[in-house]
């Protein structure tokens, strides 16, 4: 009897083990009776980011009103975000709502749901307008139209954090006591790069402190100088027909794609632009003011160095301002802190750099016509940039899809956003939501002539090679010349990303159809969309596919 029992129990155990394996491999998204579980993925760190707290509070408030909904917010570091999504989409385990930047949306477009259908209906929580999209700044026209899995006219996200009509810039934050001790006037911060360099030179000579806190984010550091040269430069390679100033910013990346993939990857016209000498020279000089350990520092160490009064200044933007300010203490900042906006490079700065021997007179002369003369906004492009996208797989689960859309409508309502911006310290993309006090310093008034247009070379990344950060550090350390750096970085890897001519042609047809169907109120917007689609088609057709355009610098 005992032996028989042993046999039965042995069989049962083995079966349970196997069943366990199959259960583990199965779909784990099955919900408990009546409860809908929604998973949100964000790169905002729960330990340090006020944005995460903002999302958490909004989710808690929503769940209090909807007891059948369980919202789980999952954090994934920027470094691993892409690989988590890649495997998640491949294995069918990707989260329901995913925070995505514009580039990431393009990568995962096949896996994202077109939200146009929902955005053109009213919101259940904010009925100021007939269409949910009209509750956002700029209305439906401010949503970028993207290529999706089903059509080329998709809207793939609901905006969050960032207002396309509010222009913000980078700030230098400084320790007033350290500036005073160095013999500088903390109440009179630099207004241009010449004064800025004068401050930095004094701080560099002061014992016990280093001028600027820095982390290993090479791109962020070098872009400060890259963004001061090459305004409208991409336009110089194209005929006037596709250089319409109204579409200059919109077509900027297409032009960069064509330029970097010139001659289908065989040629490279961007290897010796006239301002590179001065740009690289000033970039190198500016990097020498960063704390000596910057290349090995994390963002946390960078902040800690400033908060600990080891460095006199730090560069901040409104995304990280709250975290920074919260780390500042009375004992290390007895006189408090000051802020000033990152200045614009003027011709006088080039003269100053020549006098200091950082660049040659010839480099300065060649760069002067390309120097940016007025502020370039780091946001405020007139279009929403990023937010939450919905996993396309939710089409198979209508209950969950409705819950996700309902939550997004709740979160983007004016009432919820008023509370959210206070917690997160964020700019809201929703109309008429207040701008909190902390952010007002970052907001830039538009210059009379308008902001600078997109600049070529601002992030160096548009040159293509994935090791560009390594190469730039070699240049900064004096191991290679800037000409060698440009040659090493230039790599037309983007040729793979050039859109197919049929896709572009289809977009023109769709824009034409939209114009034909547009009401009187919508005519202007639809006409602009058609012009843009046509210019884009012409640009790729002439300068890439047929190579009939003369892709050389025009002046």
């Amino acid at each position, binding site marked *: 009897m005992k032996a028989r029992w042993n*046999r039965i129990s*042995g*069989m049962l*155990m*083995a*079966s349970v*083990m*196997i069943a*366990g*394996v199959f259960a583990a491999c199965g779909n784990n998204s099955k919900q408990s009776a009546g409860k809908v579980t929604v998973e949100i993925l964000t790169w905002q760190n729960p330990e340090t980011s006020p944005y995460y707290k903002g999302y958490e509070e909004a989710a808690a408030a929503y769940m209090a009103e909807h007891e059948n909904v369980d919202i789980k917010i999952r954090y994934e570091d920027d470094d691993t975000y*892409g*690989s988590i999504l890649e495997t998640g989409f491949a294995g069918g385990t990707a989260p329901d709502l995913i925070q995505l930047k514009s580039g990431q949306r393009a*990568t995962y477009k096949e896996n994202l749901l077109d939200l146009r259908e929902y955005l053109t209906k009213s919101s259940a929580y904010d009925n100021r307008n007939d269409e949910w999209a009209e509750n956002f700044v700029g209305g439906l026209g401010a949503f970028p139209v993207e290529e999706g899995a089903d059509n080329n006219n998709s809207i793939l996200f609901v905006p969050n954090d960032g207002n396309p009509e509010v222009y913000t810039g980078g700030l230098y934050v400084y320790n007033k006591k350290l500036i005073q001790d160095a013999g500088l006037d903390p109440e009179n911060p630099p207004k241009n790069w010449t004064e800025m360099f004068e401050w930095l030179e004094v701080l560099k000579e002061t014992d016990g402190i280093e001028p600027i806190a820095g982390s*290993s984010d*090479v*791109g962020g550091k070098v872009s400060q100088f890259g963004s001061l040269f090459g305004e409208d430069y991409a336009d110089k390679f194209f005929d006037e027909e596709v250089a319409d100033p109204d579409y200059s910013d919109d077509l900027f990346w297409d032009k960069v794609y064509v330029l970097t993939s010139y001659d289908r990857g065989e040629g490279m016209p961007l290897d010796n632009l006239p301002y590179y000498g001065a740009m690289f020279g000033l970039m190198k000089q500016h990097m020498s003011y960063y*704390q*000596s*350990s910057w*290349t*090995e*520092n994390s963002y946390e*160490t960078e902040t*800690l*160095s400033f908060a*600990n009064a*080891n460095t006199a200044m730090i560069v901040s933007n409104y995304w990280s301002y709250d975290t920074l300010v919260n780390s500042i203490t009375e004992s290390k900042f007895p006189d408090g802190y000051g802020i000033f906006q990152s200045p614009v490079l003027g011709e006088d700065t080039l003269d100053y750099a020549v006098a200091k021997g950082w660049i040659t007179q010839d480099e300065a002369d060649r760069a002067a016509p390309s120097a940016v003369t007025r502020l370039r906004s780091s946001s405020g492009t007139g279009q929403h940039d990023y937010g939450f996208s919905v996993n396309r797989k939710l089409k198979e689960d209508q209950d969950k899809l409705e819950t996700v859309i309902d939550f997004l409508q709740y979160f983007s309502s004016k009432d919820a956003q008023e509370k959210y911006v206070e917690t997160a310290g964020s700019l809201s993309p929703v109309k008429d939501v207040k701008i909190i006090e902390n952010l007002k310093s970052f907001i830039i008034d538009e210059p009379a002539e308008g902001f600078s247009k997109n600049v070529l070379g601002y992030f160096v*990344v548009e040159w*293509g*090679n*994935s*090791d*560009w*950060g*390594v190469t730039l*550090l070699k240049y900064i*350390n004096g191991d290679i010349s800037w000409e060698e750096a440009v040659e090493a970085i230039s*790599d037309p*890897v*983007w040729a*793979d*990303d050039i859109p197919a001519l049929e896709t572009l042609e289809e977009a023109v047809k769709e824009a034409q159809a939209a114009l034909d169907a547009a009401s009187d109120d919508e005519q202007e917007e639809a006409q602009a969309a058609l012009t843009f689609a046509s210019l884009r088609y012409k640009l790729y057709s002439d300068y890439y596919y047929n190579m009939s355009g003369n892709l050389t610098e025009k002046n």
Partner: protein
Amino acid sequence: MSNHHNGVIRELPWYRRIWREVVCVALDIDHEEYSRKKRWKKIFGYTTLVGLLFALPAVLSNLVFDWYPMLDGIIKSFFTWSNKNPEPVFVGLQNFQNIFADPQFYASLKNMLFFFAANLILMFPTIICCIVLFRIKSERSQYVYRVLLCLQMVIPALVFTLMWIFILGYDFGAINNLLSQLGFEKVKFLGDPGLIKWTIIMTGVPFVSANTTLIYLGGLNGISESVWEAGTLDGVGPVKKFFKLELPLIAGQFKLNLIGVIGTSITAYYQQLVYYNAAVHDGILTPGLLMYFKAFPNAGAPDYGYSYALGLVLFLVALLISMVSMKFIKSDH
């Protein structure tokens, strides 16, 4: 009898011969046992079936998570594809040509050889530690030391790595703070490409691995007491005992660990990735890390074909070195 059976088996068709080999390996029996009909009931009896059922999850997971990706990797290394063109295109040996034309690959080989050589040398502190532990007379003391040694196993290796990054940091690291207070210059342990390899190696201090220790101790404990007694009667001293008895007798365990060291050194990337920053690129890039960066680049498009092909190259290199090592290290005696 045996010859007769072999004669019969040789006449079997090929598929039955393969089946026989599979059953023999799975049930750990020889051909003779397989051929005895009276054993068939035992072979496919109740106990065997329950055993096979228990083994099935492990076998399935092994096939799905180990063998399938490995075979898939070998095939994919002859293809190329991108995000915009997701359909793989056969390119023959192009990916391999790209690897062997890439100066970064050759630069990374130098770093790999450094880590390989260092890891080989650093196998010996563990061996010495094990023998010292084995020679401790008191069982109670042996037990205490074993527990202390194994306690570190509960902490993931990544935690140790991150802890060292805090300790070695330039601005706030304990070691640099100490150096600074003693009047010395601070050292860029994490930011100097010439130093980073040594930093990674030195963070392995005291160079004694708990897992490996248990393997060696298992080997030493399995040796008959009479061997040690004979050695004592022959007047073998402690040093001679190490070289002539203990070391040769754990050659089998040494071979096992050596294969592990070869594999992890040739494909090393995780520690390098944690310590990576752009400033130390040249000093830290290993072929394993290069493979990772090609698949997950900081900017630009991934080159999956290159990564798969490099993975295959590393596998073949590790296999070759392992086979050569096995040929020259005898553990029969």
